[in-house]
Each structure stands twice: as structure tokens, then as C-alpha cells.
């Protein structure tokens, strides 16, 4: 219970308001919060213990609960709903330079054949790179090209557009616009004079003829 003397000195907020405060603090704080911390952050004269007890009761049986972690308190998903959280954490990795360049060429030139990608990149494209992009559902096979050999082409997918927040691949800015926006340095890219960082891809150049 609040100290009656304090109550007269400091007008503590109504208990419903104190409960709101505890709720917001527990939600937003990255670590579980002790009663002492709650008290130090709430207005003078507040009673965090009582507010917390009310909040705890309010969340009983809900989708998230107020739980005790050591000496501190936190909001956690109800244990029976853990199955909903399975997709929560995915480990993300940066795409390799070869992959992002290949992806960019497909996006800008689609439909584009593998030979055309190699022509633009200036090095051969390893099969793993294309496979990875297809597996990620960012590129897919398009129509065969109406040129000799009828090579398959690659186009970007709806998932690609969704991921990059594009309405269509045609909305990508052109080279001129990239330069104007300062995305295109007129400096040589780092390592341009060094051994080609794409050398890893250069090894099995001939493998495409062994299919």
C-alpha cells in the first residue's frame, strides 16, 4: 500500500495509470526490470509492487504474461504459444558479391541469358550462384530466347520485388540516376587493380560445356 504520508506530499498517479506505466516499461525495456528500477522510473509516491500485481492479474491467461526472471520482471509470450514463434529468428547473411552482381544484372536486363550475364560481368557465373538465387526465389527461369540455340533466360520474381520494395523491376534507377544520386562513385572500385576478387568464379569456366 502507498505510504499515506507520501501520498499527501506527492500526488501519485491513480493506480490504473501506474499499471499503464509498468506495462509500458516492461514492454519497451530490453532487460527484465526489478521493482526498485520500476519505482525509480515512475513518479514519486507510486507503488510499483501493487501496479505490477494488477498487471500480472490482467495478463493471466493472455497471449503474453508478466513473468518473474530472477529478481526482475518481464513480459513474455505464453509458453503454450511458443510454436507461433518458430519463424521468429532467421540467421541472415550478406549475399556474396558475385551473387549480388548477378542479381543486379538479371534485375536490370531481364529477361537475360546466362551468356549475357557473363558478357556483362566479364567473368563466368558459377552454377552455384544461379542456383542460390533461384533457391532464394529471387530469380526464376523466363521464356527461352528466340535466338539461335533458344537459350533459357532468367527474370526476377515477385518475391524479389517484395524484398526490395519495388513495384516493378522497371522502377530501378538507371546508371545516370545512380550517378546523380551519388550511388556511383567515379573512383575505381576498391581492389580494381588488385587480383580480381571474383577469381573464385574463374576456375571452372569450361564446366558449362561438360553438361
Amino acid at each position, binding site marked *: 500500500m502507498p505510504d499515506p504520508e507520501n501520498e499527501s506530499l506527492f500526488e501519485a498517479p491513480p493506480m490504473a495509470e501506474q499499471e499503464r506505466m509498468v506495462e509500458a516499461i516492461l*514492454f519497451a525495456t530490453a532487460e527484465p526490470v526489478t521493482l526498485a528500477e520500476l519505482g525509480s522510473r515512475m513518479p514519486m509516491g507510486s507503488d510499483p509492487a501493487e501496479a505490477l500485481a494488477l498487471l500480472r492479474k490482467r495478463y493471466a491467461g493472455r497471449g503474453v504474461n508478466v513473468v518473474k526472471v530472477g529478481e526482475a520482471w518481464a513480459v513474455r509470450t505464453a509458453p503454450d504459444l511458443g510454436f507461433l514463434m518458430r519463424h521468429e529468428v532467421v540467421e*541472415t547473411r550478406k*549475399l556474396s558479391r558475385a551473387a*549480388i552482381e548477378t542479381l543486379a544484372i538479371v534485375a536490370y536486363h531481364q529477361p537475360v541469358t546466362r*551468356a549475357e550475364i557473363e558478357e556483362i560481368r*566479364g567473368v563466368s557465373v558459377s552454377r552455384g550462384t544461379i542456383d542460390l538465387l533461384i533457391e532464394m526465389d529471387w530469380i526464376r527461369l523466363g521464356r527461352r530466347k528466340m535466338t539461335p540455340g533458344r537459350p533459357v533466360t532468367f527474370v526476377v520474381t515477385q518475391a524479389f520485388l517484395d524484398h526490395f520494395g519495388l513495384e516493378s523491376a522497371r522502377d*530501378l534507377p538507371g546508371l545516370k540516376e545512380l550517378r546523380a544520386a551519388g550511388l556511383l562513385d567515379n573512383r575505381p572500385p576498391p581492389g580494381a587493380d588488385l587480383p580480381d576478387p571474383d577469381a573464385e568464379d574463374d576456375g571452372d569456366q569450361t564446366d558449362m560445356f561438360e553438361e
Partner: protein
Amino acid sequence: MTPAEDPFEADPQSVSERLAAEALIVDVGAFEGPLDLLLTLSRTQKVDLRQVSILALAEQYLAFVERAKALRLELAADYLVMAAWLAFLKSRLLLPPDPADEGPSGEELAAHLAFQLERLEAMRAAAARLMARDQKGRDFFARGLGEDVARVRRITFTATLLDLMQAYARVRTRDDFRPFVMDRDAIFTLEEALERMRPLIGFAGDWTDLTSYLPDGWQMDPARRRSATAATFAASLELAKEGRIEIRQADIFAPIELRKRGPRDA
């Protein structure tokens, strides 16, 4: 814009106005271009932007540029372009309209400038209101604590739009930065093979071995020969489809031969 206003009202500048102009000149680097400066000048008229006298504003701006010149201050080119344009606008506003002139009237030009100033002012105010809103991470908060329920780790690869655009820019400009090199000297493309064969088949009256169409210098190295053979073969299939040549092979693994198909054979 009020054309009725006495155009010479602003001419004998008061001391305070001149001081204000001096202050502006000191600050010229702080302005984001002529429009920004004009907006600041228009505030000294202490009226609603919709009532601002564009003529008086032009006078103020021209006085500013003159003073900057007198002080030998380097003004960026766009300030001088604006000065020239305002001088032109001033003459249009002061002189009676020439009926032979088809361009927009001085009033129209002045009205547009007033609109630009009002719009810039409005966007400044909107920007300030936007930034004064409650902001995430400052006034309201997202969940601070990650869930520590059992997780399925799944690796996804990620890239941002910026990565994508920069990658493309890098690829497309790489040639700007390095001497030309043949990256794929061991690959003979179908297109190249076709280009080589089209003029040659005109002379191939009789059955000729396919390998005789391989380009010079591609026979020795195995990788180069393989690539050239594959491309040349694919190209001959294409030419056969077009009805320009015939292909035959006596036996499995026997040499592939081709000859021109005469127009009468078709």
C-alpha cells in the same frame, strides 16, 4: 504580389535595411541557394507570403547581389542567374506589356515566384511539424526484449536495394576503370560462330567437314576447340533450320559435313 504598390518605395534604403543586407552577405554561405535567400528576404517585408511584393523582393535581391559584388564576394553562379532573371522580371513588371510579346506576362512570372516561395515555406513548416511528431525510439517504443523461445535457425541471405544498385553500378562502370581485357578467351559464342559461318557457307558448294569452319587459332587448345566446336555445331543447326545448309553424318562419331542448299532444292 501587389503591382499597385509604389515601385520606388523600397529604393531609398533605410539604415536598418542596409544593415540587414550586410548581415545577409556575411551569411551567404548559410543559404541553400537563391530561393532560400529570397524567402529570407521576403520575411523582412513582414507580411503574409501571399501579399509579398515581388517587385520589392527583386529590388532587395539585386541590391544584395550588388553589395556582394562590391565586397568582391564570390557568389555561386546560380545567384547570378537568379539576379539576371529578377532584373528581367523587374523590367517586365515596370514596363507596360508589349502586345507583340507572346511570352508569359510579368505578373504571371511574379505569381509563380510567389507560389514557389510559399510552397518552400509550406514544406519547411511541414518538415518541422513532421519532426515534432512523436517518434519511435524517442516518444514511443517498440518491443525491447527479444523472445527467447526455442528457435529454428534458418539461414537466409540478405541484400538491400542499395547493395543491388551499387552492384549494378560497379559492374557497368568497371570497364571505365581498367584496360580492356578479354575475360573469356576460351569461349566462342554461338553468335560469333553464326557471324563467322554466314559469309563462309556461300562458298561451300560441296560437303565440307564441320571442323574446317572452326576459327583460326581455336583448334589446338582443347578448351578452346571444345567451345568453338560446340558453337559451330549449334550454329550449323540453326542455319539448317533456316534452310540455308544441309547436314549429314555418315555414322556415329563420323565427321559431320555440311553444304550449301541451293535455292532449287528448297
